[in-house]
């Protein structure tokens, strides 16, 4: 079938040495980035603690030991105890759970909303685009903490009342756990604060990617819009998106701490680092370890996510992909 006279003579051997997957290349670049690797360790540890923390803690996070209130760090209580005699180390481990749960869930929600809104804006353009851009500008122009406070003040009471009604109607004990209201409000506020960033990122990516030649080529082959989005646009937007998600996860955890600090976060009894920091701050001169534990954890995690984000940014930068 193949004719001899058209056997090509141009370079077959190009990049022969690197017959590997693009993602593998990116991973190799990431692994070569020292700060990123250093950053990954605490993050992996954080997730590990979040999952297995309850099995690792020496004490229950609620267990109060009135004989050992505000105890200094010792072999019994590694990081001391708080005012109620609860083991600070155990509470920090549990706090990892809150941080990870808040980070993951709020990032997932804002990512989904951002993906949908950003895709619609970027792909449909026109009025839809203008509306989405306006919405994101509006949301972003409001101070994040103020937004969280307003949400908390306006929604907390009605939601709790609704939970109580549901309990009376169903007698389901679930509706008595008002911490779910806290969680929903915190997730909601975080998602509201974070979706515009993802939406704008996706929109920008789509606008730039859809004008690229391979999208034109795919359209010229009759590929439908949905397929072009999933096969061409989204994979190509993946690099920046992964970077943004990495930064967003860290950001959500910090924000949650700030919420707790201001009293609109996850309320006790679920330990939250932010809440622990704000409690610890009141007594930091007499009992600095109450503040130090959660504050140091928070700082390590924040810095780690920043380093990982930078590393991902470099590793996934398509300009380095020779494609």
């Amino acid at each position, binding site marked *: *079938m*193949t004719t001899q006279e058209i*056997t090509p003579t141009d370079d077959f051997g190009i990049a022969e040495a690197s017959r590997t997957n693009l993602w593998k290349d990116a991973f190799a670049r990431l692994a070569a980035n020292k700060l990123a690797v250093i950053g990954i360790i605490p993050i992996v540890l954080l997730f590990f603690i979040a999952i297995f923390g309850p099995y690792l803690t020496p004490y229950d996070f609620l267990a109060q030991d009135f004989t050992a209130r505000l105890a200094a760090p010792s072999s019994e209580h590694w990081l001391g105890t708080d005012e109620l005699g609860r083991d600070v180390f155990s509470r920090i481990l549990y706090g990892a759970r809150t941080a990870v749960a808040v980070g993951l869930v709020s990032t997932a929600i804002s990512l989904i909303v951002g993906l949908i809104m950003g895709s619609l804006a970027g792909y449909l353009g026109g009025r839809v685009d203008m509306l989405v851009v306006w919405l994101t500008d509006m949301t972003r122009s409001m101070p994040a903490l103020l937004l969280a406070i307003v949400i908390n003040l306006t929604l907390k009471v009605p939601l709790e009342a609704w939970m109580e009604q549901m309990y009376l109607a169903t007698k389901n004990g679930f509706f008595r756990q008002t911490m779910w209201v806290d969680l929903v409000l915190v997730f909601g506020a975080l998602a509201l604060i974070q979706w515009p960033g993802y939406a704008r990122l996706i929109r920008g990516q789509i606008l730039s990617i859809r004008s690229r030649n391979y999208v034109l*080529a795919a359209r010229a*082959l009759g590929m439908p819009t949905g397929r072009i989005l999933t096969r*061409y646009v989204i994979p190509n937007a993946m690099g920046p998106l992964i970077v943004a998600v990495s930064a967003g996860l860290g950001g959500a955890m910090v924000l949650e701490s700030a919420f707790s600090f201001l009293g609109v976060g996850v309320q006790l009894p679920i330990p939250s680092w932010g809440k622990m920091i704000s409690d610890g701050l009141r007594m930091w001169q007499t009992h600095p370890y109450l503040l130090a534990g959660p504050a140091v954890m928070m700082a390590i995690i924040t810095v780690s996510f920043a380093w990982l984000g930078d590393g991902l940014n470099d590793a996934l930068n*398509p300009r380095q992909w020779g494609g």
Partner: protein
Amino acid sequence: MSVLLDVQDLQTRFQVRKGYVYAVNGVSFQLDQGDTLAVVGESGCGKSVTMLSLVRLLPPAASIENGQVLLRGEDLLQLNLRQLRDVRGGEIGMIFQDPMTSLNPFINIGTQMAEPLIYHRGMSKSEALARSAELLGMVGIPDGEARLREYPHQFSGGMRQRVMIAMSMSCEPAVLIADEPTTALDVTIQAQIVELVKELRDRSGVAVIWITHDLSVVAGIADRVIVMYAGYIVEEAPVDALFEDPRHPYTVGLMGALPSLAGETGTRLTTIGGSPPDLVDLPDFCPFHPRCPYAIDRCRKENPMLEPVIDASDGGHRAACWVDIREVELEAGAAAGSV
């Protein structure tokens, strides 16, 4: 030969901040089954926009204001998007200028090649991959099965253009539109790509529209030629008639600018002074007159229509010019092509 594609009075313009850019201004042409039509003209003359209009692949700012695009008698401009997708890739394949960016860098070649086969031909993934490996062989890329697992950055420019050709031909379209497919490639590879398309055309009987700004390629591949300027067809002729007896000053200029056979690039077209006009107004004069050594008063007042030329050696020879350039003796040094 029956008419496969019949384009009638196509007009496309772009909405820009201060009004419109008139990119395509009443273009009509026919393409017969299995024929090859070359479209030539300098950059910015509306060649690409014309072809993208055929299958409505235009950017959002563009709109087709008038015309018909009859493929076997069916007007593509009236189709809904679903029907149009079946035409794209299925009936009309396209390859573009820049093979380096025409493939998705994140998906391996096999997956990309399989997509249209799965979508248009309803093949299973494994059938589509097997067919893709065959297609790679047909476009001169050996070891297809292994290469399907590779990514675009592992292919050279010429190889990528071969992949693009294989993809655009995979669903056996009736028309292949090649929009300057060799412009971005080395000269030796250009010739290979031209040979490849000729070879595939002769084997499959696909009709080809070959866009180029390089007349030297045209002689070897085309049956007929359209010369475009400022969104108008200014001359149209069978390839021999065009080379032996060009009637439009712009065509003469392009020929005067033919690169030498050694293929020195960079010399082509530089011998016509000036450049194509901005297309911000529809002209009521000949759009070529500022650059035309033959221009007379009338050229500045009326835009000539494309009409059959006098004493044509072939019935299909048309040109849009007020002057019969054979009757004009230009002063030394003023001949088109050396202005």
